[in-house]
């Protein structure tokens, strides 16, 4: 085989390896985690904090009104709450807006059926380890963070639902 052909094939393989690596690393942004829910105070609009949901599976989402992917995730979180709420799921959206009025205007435009913690909640975001906006965390019935999910794309929905279902199937204390 001519040498230039071999070089061409090597370049081809190298480039496809990079493409495959990028696809693999970006296709599953959910990262397994296992640590207790950080001891940080959030003030839910309905009163109280995380403690009132003891024994439930929590989907904790850090969002802000200016964040486009956060807006995309809101209909999904509404669906999640209505579909799995009766089985023990609680969605908690933790607002990270620096100006509370921005969040209030956003929520007036996009009504939600889940719990919202008014912002800003910077100490809590630091304690959870929020690396990008939005970031969501799935917490099991025993109060342990089981996975972290950076960003939101419509293609993530099926994976997240499967994770929620598997956590709901677990019994408290197991």
């Amino acid at each position: 085989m001519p040498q230039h052909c071999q070089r061409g094939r090597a370049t081809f393989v190298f480039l496809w390896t990079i493409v495959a690596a990028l696809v693999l690393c970006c296709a599953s942004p959910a990262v397994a985690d296992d640590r207790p829910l950080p001891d940080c105070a959030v003030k839910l609009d309905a009163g109280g904090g995380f403690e009132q949901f003891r024994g439930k599976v929590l989907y904790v989402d850090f969002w802000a009104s200016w964040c486009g992917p956060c807006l995309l995730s809101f209909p999904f979180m509404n669906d999640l709450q209505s579909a799995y709420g009766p089985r023990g799921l609680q969605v908690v959206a933790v607002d990270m807006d620096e100006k509370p009025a921005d969040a209030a205007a956003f929520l007036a435009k996009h009504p939600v059926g889940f719990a919202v913690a008014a912002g800003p909640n910077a100490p809590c975001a630091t304690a959870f380890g929020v690396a990008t906006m939005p970031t969501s965390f799935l917490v099991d019935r025993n109060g342990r963070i089981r996975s972290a999910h950076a960003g939101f794309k419509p293609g993530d929905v099926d994976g997240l639902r499967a994770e929620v279902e598997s956590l709901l199937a677990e019994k408290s204390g197991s």
Partner: protein
Amino acid sequence: MLVAAALILGAAGCEPVQPWERGDLAKPQMVLEPDPANSALRAHTFAAREAAQGGNAGVGGGCGCN
């Protein structure tokens, strides 16, 4: 004294911006390219006239959301 003041003020630029502190950066008026289509057209015209292209790339602002 001036050098110390400059160093202290400059050090403020080393403070990392947290993901949730990008609200102002996400505003439409913070976009470096307010009209990407028009800029692309201008770049194309420039490349055609000058017989040269590239060198006009730069990093942008934005919310850094995922």
